[in-house]
């Protein structure tokens, strides 16, 4: 084994240990020291058992955990894809074409500071508690970072790179596709990551307020029924989904963002 691999291996062990320590502390605080009553903070083993049960059980909220995940995932993806498909090209257009910037920027600057969660009441009164209102909230929370990052990524294109392209005879569109967009890609990707994060936040918040299924709904029902174990199952599920999404982004980024800065 090379020195590099050895070091990497050791670092992996350390990472694994930190998770184990976290679980151990949790276990000691709950099962051994009983710092909190079991109904408000159950120990990790109970939570794991609840997790396994919840995989196939519809108790107490009418759906199994995979059904909740799927429901949330569906809505998140619908809103997210809409936000990205509209936001990224719009941001690029704003960054590249000055009249688009002049038209869109004022409205955009006005909408940008509004927290997506503040839209929940409006959306619920408009669309009810179905998929539309949640997809709209996620769309809103996704489209903003998509636009911001694409826009500033394009704006940061190096003038000299554009000069180079021009001295080679590249047309305006060629400059956009061979220089501006590739150089903005790392930034656009960062925007997509941020958008993914906030879209889940928006979704869970929306589901906490009104839903009939979904992880947020599962958590809020569990709270009403004092089922802390299910709340924690919900939280850990969210964390786990976050990790998976981030890994998927890593893979896509390795594939598309080449060469570095």
């Amino acid at each position: 084994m090379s020195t590099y691999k050895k070091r990497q291996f050791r670092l992996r062990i350390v990472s694994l240990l930190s998770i184990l320590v976290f679980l151990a502390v949790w276990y000691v605080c709950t099962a051994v020291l009983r710092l909190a009553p079991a109904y408000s903070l159950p120990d990790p083993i109970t939570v794991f058992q609840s997790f396994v049960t919840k995989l196939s059980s519809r108790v107490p909220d009418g759906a199994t955990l995979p059904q909740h995940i799927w429901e949330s995932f569906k809505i998140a993806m619908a809103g997210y894809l809409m936000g990205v498909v509209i936001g990224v090209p719009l941001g690029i257009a704003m960054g590249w074409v000055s009249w688009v910037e002049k038209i869109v920027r004022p409205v955009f600057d006005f909408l940008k500071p509004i927290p997506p969660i503040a839209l929940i009441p409006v959306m619920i009164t408009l669309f009810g508690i179905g998929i539309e209102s949640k997809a709209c909230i996620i769309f809103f929370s996704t489209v903003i970072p998509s636009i911001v990052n694409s826009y500033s990524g394009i704006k940061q294109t190096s003038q000299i790179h554009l000069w180079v392209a021009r001295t080679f005879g590249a047309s305006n569109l060629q400059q956009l596709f061979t220089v501006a967009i590739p150089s903005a890609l790392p930034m656009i990707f960062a925007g997509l990551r941020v958008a993914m994060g906030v879209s889940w936040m928006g979704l869970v918040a929306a589901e906490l307020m009104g839903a009939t299924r979904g992880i947020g709904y599962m958590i809020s029902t569990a709270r009403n029924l004092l089922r802390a174990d299910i709340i924690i199952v919900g939280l850990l599920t969210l964390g786990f989904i976050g990790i998976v999404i981030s890994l998927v982004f890593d893979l896509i980024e390795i594939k598309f963002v080449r060469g570095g800065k």
Partner: protein
Amino acid sequence: MTMEKKKTVIEVRDVSKTFYNREGDHLVVDHLNFNVYENEFVVLFGPGQCGKTTVLNLIAGLELPTGGEVVVNGEKVVGPSPSRGMVYQTTNLFMWYNVMKNVEFGPCVRGVKKAERRKKAQYYIDLVGLTGFEKHFPVKLSGGMQQRVGIARAYCNEPDIICMDEPFGHLDAQTRYLMEEEVDRISASEKRTVVFVTNNAEEAIYLADRIILLHNCPTSVHREYLVNLPRPRNYVAPEFLELREQITKDMDDTIG
């Protein structure tokens, strides 16, 4: 050999350039006149900050003169053109493309077929000595290698004129000598009109057919030197050193 019999490629006619900014008007180039002939290697030489780069940008068409005109092959320069290639001070490679895609960029945007432009790019990659690095991304290359890619990229577009703006200014001395030799070799095998900007007297004499010494800001022609030493030139030949001393002394006069 008299230059006057050769075809004139670049005519800089009474060119002035003023930059207008918040601090006021800033005259950088003042009634500049010179010609460059076909396949000639001209070095624009002068002290730092003397507006050499501006002159080069005017020839490339990246800037437009505020007075007079630059005429290339009988046509007035009104903007950048693929017939005038640029090699920049800092390497401005496209970091998101590998070496091959960087070099073939010019033919690519002009719509040259893939097989043809690959062949051409490969030729210039070989010429600058980067065979085997086609798939590497610029971040993985050293400064000297990046500058080679920049040179190959400029040549691959087959421009009539190649403008080089202190291309070795950021390299260490050793690499610099090496690159000067390379440029000398490449320009011998690929005859082009080259306008090369530097503030290094040694580099100027090593490479130039003709050196144009520019005045300090505002820029105008101070003196010209024809360099008739045999190539490749020897940095320590007596004639070389003599010319170097002369040019350095003249440059000091332009500052003082």
